[in-house]
């Protein structure tokens, strides 16, 4: 893969997961500082992950909570 933006795209998930080596992180940072096109896509991915987590969080019903509490061993 020779295009630096293609390489940056491949590194996005491991970069955001913090699983790249120090050398690779440095490499990605240098590219992201210079390339607003990639930097924007990284920011979007971070926002997307947060958005997905928030939008998909559904609270449990009080009925279920009560049923679970009722499973406790009586004292």
């Amino acid at each position, binding site marked *: 893969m020779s295009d630096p933006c293609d390489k940056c795209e491949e590194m996005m998930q491991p970069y955001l997961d913090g*699983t790249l080596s120090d050398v690779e992180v440095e490499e990605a940072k240098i590219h992201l500082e210079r390339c607003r096109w990639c930097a*924007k896509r990284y920011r979007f*991915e971070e926002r997307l992950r947060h958005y997905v987590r928030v939008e998909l969080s*559904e609270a449990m019903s009080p009925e279920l909570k009560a049923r679970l509490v009722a499973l406790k061993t009586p004292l």
Partner: protein
Amino acid sequence: MSESAPSTEDTRRLAQEARARVRFEEEALELSDQVYRVARRLVGTREEAEDLVQQTYERAFRAWRQFTPGTNLRAWLLRILTNLNIDRGRRQQRTPQTTSIDEAADYFLYNSLEAATPEDNPDEERVLEKLSQDSIVEALADVPHDFRDTVVLVDIGEFSYADAAQILDIPIGTVMSRLHRGRRILKKNLADRAVPA
């Protein structure tokens, strides 16, 4: 509570065990919101999620002695839950998997959403608005379950790769590859459901 003083070794041991059990149950119940949040996205409906969480707690309370204190209780509960879910899944899996398994490169979603945004060079917030909550729910539900389980545990449950590997009983490398592909499938599904321009 018994009125007799703990005079023998046995009564002391029983009292100690009762306290440990109460503590275990309370700690497990404190995690129930987080357990439910993950369960809700592992299965299709709220009813299934509620059944699964209830069965998980029934089993966990029966098997509480098998939990090693000091280890990750939330991961232990999710291990029970995913095993119960797999037992159900194996029965259901007889119906063929019809979901397409298209995935796209990581920038694909952004590129297609940006193209569907009227203004030139929009900021990433504006682009994100192209995704509705319903579309996210559907897009995740359409990710084939092996990939979805991993995405749900790591990206919604915020479990580490190591915990996810233990919960799903697969190697860490498999967690990483399924997560990577699962996110790409999710993004492809999201691109297909974006709010039109």
